[in-house]
């Protein structure tokens, strides 16, 4: 079944062969784990969101209107789960004072090192507002067009463009501060 299309696998699961769902899990887990990690900022929450998305997708599989586009449907569920978990995490973390520059400077053990640069990006990403981070990831990392993003998120194209622009401005600002320090 590994080489079968999403539609073929979905049809077989709907006939009662639940074990074949594993092929879809294997197919999408790594790519979508990356998105969940960038949105939520830690592996535990990312795994929780992704596992939740897969189980919700299985439970509602008969309502997947385009089985051949199962991946896109699953991604939509994941985006919603990340929003929910992100808002819950946001409520937890509001008791902490966030000193962005101090956090970013503290991460700068070896600025020339690739891992340090990556850590700086991850930290800067988490400083963005959730809606701006979501728009930035969909546009630049998932490589989506604005129309597709709009269908996925339910947000208008002009609002999405604004979010992406502000996310870019903020990332430049945060990462420039680190480099100029």
């Amino acid at each position, binding site marked *: 079944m590994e080489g079968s299309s999403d539609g073929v696998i979905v049809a077989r699961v709907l006939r009662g062969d639940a074990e074949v769902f594993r092929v879809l899990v294997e197919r999408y*887990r*790594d790519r979508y784990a990356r998105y969940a990690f960038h949105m939520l900022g830690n592996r535990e929450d990312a795994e929780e969101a992704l*596992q939740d998305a897969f189980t919700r997708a299985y*439970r509602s599989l*008969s309502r997947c209107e385009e089985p051949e586009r199962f991946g896109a449907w699953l991604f939509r569920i994941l985006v919603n789960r990340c929003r929910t978990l992100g808002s819950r995490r946001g409520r937890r973390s509001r008791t902490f004072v966030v000193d962005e520059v101090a956090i970013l400077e503290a991460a700068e053990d070896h600025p020339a090192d690739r891992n340090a640069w990556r850590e700086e990006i991850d930290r800067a990403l988490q400083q963005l507002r959730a809606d701006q981070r979501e728009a930035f990831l969909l546009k630049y990392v998932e490589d989506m067009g604005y129309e597709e993003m709009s269908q996925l998120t339910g947000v208008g194209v002009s609002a999405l463009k604004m979010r992406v622009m502000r996310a870019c401005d903020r990332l430049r600002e945060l*990462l420039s501060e680190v480099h100029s320090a």
Partner: protein
Amino acid sequence: MMKDIARELRAPLSPPLSASFNGRVMAAVRRMPRHSRFRLWSRLTTPRTVTVIPLSWGLLAASLALFAIIGATRAFDDVRTATKPIVTALFPSSRVPEAPQRVQFVLVAPDAKKVAVVGDFNGWDAGHASYQAQHRGGGVWSVTAPVPVGHHRYSFVVDDSVWVADPTAPRVVDNDFGVANSAIVVQEQK
């Protein structure tokens, strides 16, 4: 700079998800009811080898004979029941069919972009125009819609993807998908 950032972020998660992730998802999947929407159709349409035992033909013939006898006796009943609609037409009952009642559904969902009500009264159709909730402010969504008199199951669908049972109503498990729906009893207003 944005392209550099995007290139870094497109790199696979390192280290990747553990191998046990698949197992955890599949364990959760196995705890849920299996889908069976097409099981009967599949059994009827999928080619398979059938072994025929001679005795089974005898049993089949005996069954057919039995059904023929039962059918003949029922024919008399059919004639009698066929006259019922004529009697009803000549002497109509004074009872008027109960009209659907207006029911208000309310859900508090501050993060929702869209909320719809689905149930056995609208064919579980999240796109049904009469059951789209409106945002009343403060995260409160509501819709008042017609529901026939009787017992019904229903749920909210948030943002076209998340099923949410009504937190203010009793729950009942849907055996088809294992989803906890809400239960409602609609009575005719006096």
